[in-house]
């Protein structure tokens, strides 16, 4: 039962960070975008860098990220966020410019911008949401779509003959000397959220210390696009997505992690 008497400062255990606005998020319930937004915002608050943070929002489901992050923001054309972030960060070297991008944005149309920003070692943070599908446009195939996976443009399942292989862009980026920190995380459990928060904190700390490019991939569900309930989607993600996209650090302090 709701008891108004318990609403007292000393009973407060959790508060929405001021780095998120009060705008109501449009994300589907159970989607990883909302959770990841919150984590990024909390890290910005905890580091006291709200005045220095500049968000480059993508085209994709998170196109309206600029309405949710209570920081200065720039909406990019589809895939161009790393080029935009490059200019902003080079002109304001003491800021915290970060891009927030989906897999279509980062690994299909924006592949060149992504690879070259990483290869130049731009001092930016890239938050990369990999849900293996184009969420925003209605669930079409992404470069990251798994073999056999059904999407609106691979209705009989992705095949190598027709579509080639799922792109592990994160592993590819780790090969580039410009990248300093590359990790793959998820936000489907409380423990995973804690790890992702640590990773995102690490990425922004690296940026503060001018280490070069840090990228945090978050393997996430797109329950609407996958046509599953959120619970089913997370289960499917663990059983299938995590096989192709294993969770863990890929490159730390400029060194690839030995497996």
């Amino acid at each position, binding site marked *: 039962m709701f008891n108004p008497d318990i609403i007292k400062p000393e009973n407060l255990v959790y508060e929405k960070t001021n780095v998120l606005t009060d705008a109501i998020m449009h994300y589907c319930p159970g989607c990883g975008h909302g959770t990841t937004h919150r984590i990024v915002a909390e890290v910005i608050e905890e580091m006291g860098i709200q005045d220095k943070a500049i968000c480059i929002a993508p085209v994709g489901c998170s196109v309206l990220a600029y309405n949710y992050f209570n920081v200065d*923001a720039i909406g990019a*054309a589809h895939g161009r966020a790393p080029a*935009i972030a490059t*200019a*902003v960060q*080079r*002109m304001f070297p003491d800021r915290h410019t970060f891009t927030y991008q989906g897999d279509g944005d980062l690994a299909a149309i924006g592949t060149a*911008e992504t690879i070259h920003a990483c290869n130049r070692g731009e001092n930016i943070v890239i938050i990369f949401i990999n849900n293996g599908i184009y969420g925003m446009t209605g669930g079409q195939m992404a470069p990251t779509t798994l073999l056999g996976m059904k999407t609106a443009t691979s209705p009989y399942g992705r095949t190598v003959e027709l579509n080639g292989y799922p792109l592990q862009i994160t592993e590819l980026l780790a090969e580039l000397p410009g990248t300093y920190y590359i990790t793959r995380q998820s936000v489907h459990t409380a423990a995973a959220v804690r790890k992702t928060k640590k990773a995102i904190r690490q990425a922004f700390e690296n940026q503060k210390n001018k280490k070069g490019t840090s990228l945090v991939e978050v393997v996430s569900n797109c329950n609407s696009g996958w046509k599953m309930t959120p619970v089913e989607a997370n289960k499917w993600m663990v059983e299938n997505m995590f096989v192709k996209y294993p969770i863990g650090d890929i490159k730390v302090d400029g060194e690839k992690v030995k497996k």
Partner: protein
Amino acid sequence: MAKELKLMKGNEAIAEAAIRSGCDGYFGYPITPQSEVMEHLMIEKPWETTGMVVLQAESETSSINMVYGGAAAGKKVMTSSSSPGISLMQEGLTYLAGAELPALVVNVVRGGPGLGTIQPSQADYFQAVKGGGHGDYQMYVLAPASVQEMYDFVFLGWEIAFKYRNPVMILSDGAIGQVMEKLYVGPHIPRWTEEELRKNAPWASCGKPADRDHNIITSLDLDSAKQELHNHKLQAKYREMEEKEVLFEAINCEDAEYIFVAYGSSARIAQKAIQLGREKGIKVGLLRLITLFPFPKKQIAEFSKKVKGMLAVEMSAGQMVEDVRLAAEFRCPVEHFGRYGGIIHTPHEVLEALEEKIIKG
């Protein structure tokens, strides 16, 4: 302060003007016939003197988006390219216009279509003034006819770009880019300090102080009613430019019975053709367009009431001529002459065309 005399290529003048006008960033990708812009900047190393950022991008798609980023953060940023590269930039240009961002883009035009040729051309007129990207938008388009104007229009470009929060294009061509001429350069104007930037561009996304709301730069509005309002605002801005910012030069027009309408290299050639014509007793003048958008509609309408005919001279198959005809509204004959595909017409050819197409008619 005293002006300094220099001998430079048009492309180098652009680079020199960038440094001296307090430009914060240049982002480019090599392409003939404009590569000297970035080459000159790299030799000058302005990052060591004025603090200007210079970066070679991986493509024109990327360089225009770097410009978009810098502009969104309130900086004075620019790029330059030539026709095929400018085609690749169209996405960025419509985003700049939609998000109302000030920026300077130089097109040193070469012959097309496709990879075309590296020789001068004026066949990108439609792309520049009709909006090569999608949506209802306009750039402010300046057409320099000399190395001096390549230099001067960078300064003018910043002024207009920030006054209207709109991209400005300097539409040059391979001849003006490559030719060496003397020019006067002025003293360095310092780059804006962050305080000046925040004062002059309070809308910029460059970090949110505690005492203001977060700034958002975007061209998106999913609410069509709001997007229509935004379009109204853009159109009002373009009409204001048409009202206040038209630039042109009328040469030998007082007694003219015939008028050449031309810009850039073609205007220089037409000027010589005037001389040849007058030696033969043909009273011909030149309306040299300096802004292509806004287009000097009123001036052309006025002339069309007085003269016996106009010849639009341009190194294209006939693009600007359409706007001249629209402005002249059939009050006098308007014909087109131009060599194209990288060929530059001679003054004799221009005069001959006037005699054939208009005078004999």
